[in-house]
């Protein structure tokens, strides 16, 4: 039995050495939802995905996936739970030595004893879902950025996971590919009844497809809400982020000494 909220995160802290990255994060993510996690570069979004996937251990707090505390699992238990989740990396991370077909078939061959004829049918079905059945013989090097992302998407739904995490799925895509990838995320989530977590900076595209948004800034949840709530929000950080304003709570300038002092101008005009 899968509990209603697939992921529960409570009091999650994580630091690299002395440097805190995430500070007291609480989240719940329901089954069948698309959730966006937004925030500036270096705000700890990708780290959060790595914590959910069990790639790193929290300093304190916990992440529960399907009722199991991820960081308390042994390696084989972690691998068992990872078969229920999938991750789409920023640039697809397709295996460059395997063809499109073999990339999608990879997990089926590694984790199941399905006969090759059935694997072939399944792979072609997954590729059909992302519109690339005709490209199954190509090598990853022959694909455009958008196509590679779609193949990676087909690969990540290979074993019908409960959860897919997308790390910046829209980076570097042209407007058409961007819309295609965005609507695929929504359609596949609905069709397969899984949960999708999308880490992204792309506000406009993701607000179109998600059910709920979390904003992370300086390691804490700065704001959260449905896309409509986010659009209407007057909170300074959310407003700056959604409208892409240059200055606001997130300052344009990296912290520095006073300008005049750096240019050694102090006193010269006195």
């Amino acid at each position, binding site marked *: 039995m899968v509990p209603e909220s697939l992921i529960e995160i409570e009091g999650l802290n994580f630091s690299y050495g002395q440097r805190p990255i995430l500070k007291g994060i609480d989240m719940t993510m329901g089954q069948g939802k698309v959730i966006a996690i937004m925030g500036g570069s270096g705000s700890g979004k990708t780290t959060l995905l790595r914590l959910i*996937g069990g*790639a790193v251990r929290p300093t304190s707090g916990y992440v529960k996936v399907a009722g199991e505390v991820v960081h308390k699992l042994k390696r084989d238990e972690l*691998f*068992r739970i*990872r*078969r229920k*989740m*999938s*991750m789409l*990396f*920023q*640039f697809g*991370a*397709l*295996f*460059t*030595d395997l063809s499109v077909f073999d990339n999608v078939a*990879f*997990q089926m061959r*590694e*984790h199941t004893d399905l006969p090759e004829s059935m694997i072939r049918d399944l792979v072609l079905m997954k590729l059909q879902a992302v519109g690339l059945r005709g490209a199954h013989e190509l090598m990853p090097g022959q694909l455009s950025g958008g196509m590679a992302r779609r193949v990676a998407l087909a690969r990540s739904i290979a074993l019908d996971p409960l959860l897919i995490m997308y790390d910046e799925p829209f980076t570097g895509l042209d407007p058409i590919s961007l819309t295609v990838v965005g609507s695929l995320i929504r359609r596949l989530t609905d069709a397969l009844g899984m949960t999708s977590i999308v880490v992204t900076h792309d506000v406009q595209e993701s607000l179109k497809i998600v059910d709920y948004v979390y904003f992370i800034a300086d390691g804490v949840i700065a704001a959260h809400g449905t896309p409509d709530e986010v659009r209407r929000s007057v909170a300074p950080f959310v407003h700056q982020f959604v409208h892409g304003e240059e200055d606001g709570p997130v300052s344009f300038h990296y912290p520095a000494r006073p300008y005049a002092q750096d240019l050694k101008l102090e006193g010269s005009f006195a």
Partner: protein
Amino acid sequence: MPKRIVAGIQSVGHRVIDSIWRLGYASRFFLLTLIKSGTSLRRFTLVIRELYFTGVQSLIIILVSGLFVGMVLGLQGFETLQRYGAESAVGTMVALSLLRELGPVVSALLFASRAGSAITAEIGLMKATEQLAAMEMMAVDPIARVVAPRFWAGVISMPLLAALFSAIGVYGGYLVAVILIGVDEGSFWSQMQNAVDFHYDVVNGIIKTCVFGIAVTAIAVFEGYDAAPTAEGVSGATTRTVVTSSLAILGLDFILTSFMFRGMG
């Protein structure tokens, strides 16, 4: 002044501790590779695929180099032996030099620069492009699926390549000494046959190539897996593979030779 001395001693200490730590880390990685080799041995097609890349694709450079080394040995051997009127022993000299030393050592050096560097670059790039992380997330262990097949392919192909190197080298010596210079063919082969002992020369040579194969491939897979996931990291790791394996080959060669051939009259 004392501060500087302390700092100097500290930095030496840091370096020593770092090196020992890295050695321990590499040994642990090597053990993990051996422990996780089950998948490679059960699904041997994974190893066969890598054998093609490390073994078959290294054939050209090994064969051409072997031929030239043998030819040079034939020329130099004839030149020196002629002074003592022993030019018919040129076959013996070529065969023994190749089987005991040049075959294993030169083919291992070539293997390190041709296949070792390619293994490191491939694994390093897989890491840099998050392919290894993706594999981990798919609940597939990259050491079992990526590292172990490449390791075993290297270990298997090295002795075979060295054997081909020596064989074609002997033929190169024959071409120069017999065909070109005109040493008597009968004495060339018969003296060689008399002088070369299967256990003492051939088996010891094979043992050397096996040890070199393990060393070179272990270094190559470790450097690739440990590479920083950037362009600089991968290029640095590739260089380290070639440099470290070359030194390891020459060092191990001395140690093995001193155990194998020390009583030789």
